[in-house]
């Protein structure tokens, strides 16, 4: 398929996934705050910090109140990582490949975009944030479902899936990190009843609570980290995302498993293999935050390699098949 089309489908999926995860981020903090009556003073500030856009936030909003942070992360047109911006970009990408995706997919993206745009006009987000986030997540799930059910599972679909999974792996690692950020200043929480409440809130906000309980009987930080980092079958776990993204990459190139024919395959294969041969003890001993940091860095490097290998028209070596 056209390089430009593959690029757009990849990014269309990434942006939708990004928007969905931003909604989950906000949701996790909302739950944490509810569970920490009176002690939740700087939870919202931590969220802005974790988003990496702290400076822009402070310039325009100042104080990190719930309303300010929610507005910044959801409807702010000038925040390039807000839900609105992500959706707008997803839609622009979808628009440029309307011939390569099903009309149902386009319609769903368009509807979701209009819903967010509308939410701003009718101030829905201020009146009923829970309702908004619930609807929004559902709309994103619907898009993923429509994609899987209406698009041929060929090259374009694999690019889309790869984009979705790379974005999700990155965001799961961040969401886990946010929780750590929040607890670091108050070490005495660890192991307290509040602690397990918070971990539950985290699991719930990424729709993982029930699946977690099938495997573990107690909610402990170690178990949650193990589940979200190393699980092979839970669709939001980092390892699951890597395994499936690598599968899609090999489906696109046709290289046999466990070999590599380009930089992208090499990087993701190595990252996945590292996960295959580690365990949660090792990760926690070296520091979860540090581990997640390095993971994100390597994932970004993989993203760059995908760009160079498939999308970059200027530098890609000439080849004729």
């Amino acid at each position, binding site marked *: 398929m056209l390089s430009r089309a593959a690029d757009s489908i990849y990014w269309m999926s990434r942006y939708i996934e990004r928007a969905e995860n931003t909604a989950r981020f906000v949701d996790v903090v909302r739950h944490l705050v509810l569970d920490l009556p009176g002690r939740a003073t700087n939870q919202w500030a931590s969220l802005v910090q974790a988003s990496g856009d702290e400076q822009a936030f402070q310039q325009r909003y100042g104080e990190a109140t719930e309303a300010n942070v929610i507005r910044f992360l959801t409807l702010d047109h000038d925040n390039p990582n807000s839900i609105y911006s992500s959706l707008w970009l997803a839609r622009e990408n979808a628009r440029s490949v309307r011939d390569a995706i099903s009309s149902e997919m386009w319609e769903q993206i368009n509807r979701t975009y209009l819903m967010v745009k509308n939410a701003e006009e009718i101030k829905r987000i201020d009146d009923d944030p829970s309702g908004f986030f619930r609807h929004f997540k559902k709309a994103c799930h619907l898009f993923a479902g429509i994609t899987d059910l209406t698009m041929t599972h060929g090259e374009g679909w694999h690019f889309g899936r790869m984009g979705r999974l790379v974005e999700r792996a990155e965001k799961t690692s961040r969401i886990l990190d946010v929780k750590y950020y929040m607890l670091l200043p108050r070490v005495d929480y660890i192991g307290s009843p509040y602690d397990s409440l918070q971990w539950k809130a985290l699991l719930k906000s990424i729709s993982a609570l029930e699946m977690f309980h099938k495997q573990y009987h107690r909610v402990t930080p170690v178990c949650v980290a193990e589940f979200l980092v190393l699980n092979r079958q839970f669709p939001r776990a980092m390892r699951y995302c890597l395994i499936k993204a690598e599968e899609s990459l090999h489906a696109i190139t046709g290289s046999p498993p466990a070999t590599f024919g380009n930089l992208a395959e090499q990087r993701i294969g190595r990252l996945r293999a590292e996960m295959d041969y580690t365990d949660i003890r090792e990760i926690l001993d070296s520091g979860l935050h540090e581990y997640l940091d390095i993971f994100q860095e390597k994932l970004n490097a993989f993203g760059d390699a995908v760009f160079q290998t498939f999308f970059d*028209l200027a530098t890609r070596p000439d080849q004729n098949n």
Partner: protein
Amino acid sequence: MDFFRYDVGLFYDELFHQDGSTRPGAEILIQKIQDLPAGDLVRRQQAAEAAMMSLGITFAVYGDTQGSEKIIPFDIIPRIIEPEDWRVIEAGLIQRITALNIFLNDIYHDKRVLRDGVIPEDVITSSTSYRMQCEGIRPPKDVWCHITGTDLVRDKDGRFYVLEDNLRCPSGVSYVLENRQLLKRTFPKVFEASRVRPIDDYPGWLRHTLGWLAPQRIESPTIVLLTPGAYNSAYFEHAFLAQQMGAELVEGRDLVVRDGFVMMRTTRGFTRVDVIYRRIDDDFIDPEVFRPDSMLGIPGLMEVYRAGRVALVNAPGTGVADDKVVYAYVPDMIKYYLDQDPILPNVPTYLCWREDDRRYVLDHLEELVVKAANESGGYGMLIGPGSTRDERDAFAEKINATPRGYIAQPVVALSRAPVIVDDHFEGRHVDLRPYVLYGEDIRVMPGGLTRVALRRGSLVVNSSQGGGSKDTWVIDDESGATPGRSQQQAGG
């Protein structure tokens, strides 16, 4: 809502006779509308508009970066064309396109039509749309104007006249197809009972037409639709047609000339392209031959085209026939090339570069429509009746400065059709743009884009000037003729 108070006025009405009785093809529709419970029609109209919004059948509002979009206004009352009217339109268009194609072939080769004095030579040499770069080029199968969207208007006398030929990149066919889908949802029973001729296979015909042009006998040629990009106002249509045809939607930056062929950049390297349906004007398709500052085109494209290694649709150079001065000669072309009388007449046209005509135009500006010879989309126009002294003076000055650049026509009292205005019906002026495909044979899509001037009394139907659209129903005749009738291509 009912039609009891609907006023046909002094115009030809597409659904009603002058005495207020319903035209035969519209009887089922009108009956149904009269029978609807109060408020139902408006609800159907709103449902259709909501569907267009969520389908993204919109155009971007220029100058608004934060995605302000509008739907093209759409009125759910269809325009109906009786079978005997359609027969005239179809035969007339086939005749006209046949003559125009021979003209294009002639004008870029032997120029017989000039040597025989049918068209004065300086009409052509002074046309800003004449492309010297195309002289001597033989497009695949000698077809130049593969896709046309001729604008027809109906005057008070009920006759159809040709207003413009639109041989470059006529747009709007996607709205025709989408309008039909919406109407089928809006009036399913009426639609079923009205024996409306289907138009849904247009993308299939289009694909067939394009495939037929592939340079060599290639089993499955690579067909692409070249768009200026997602920010073009007609982008919806480009994406829609590519999707419906299963063609690749490409931008200039996706294509490159290599080893004498046009190639597209794919995730697996370069792939050869055989047919390009380009929705970019001649001026922009190849910076090496046309405008050097074009960022939209493909350097070297024309050389590949000249060598017959890629087909371009429509052929570069067809714009000369869109020149409104050249248009005035189309009836003469039909006589000259085909030895036939034109079936569809032109609107009478005064050419300002002819001294007598110019004098007449300048003396009668108040009654005439003056148009720039090389504009379209309703731009560069003066509608005499209702114009101000200053506007007329400004045009008189322009005409005197460049007489070749202007033509004038009497005001056509465009026919009207009822549209929903709040809680009642009012007549609004309409035109008709049927689409014609010139491939192995010439096919006229049974239907077309009915554009409506939504402002009361307005004669300007262009969407850039506040126009909307309607679905167009061509009624099948009793004999149950087969859809997609066609006529063998006349020899050149």
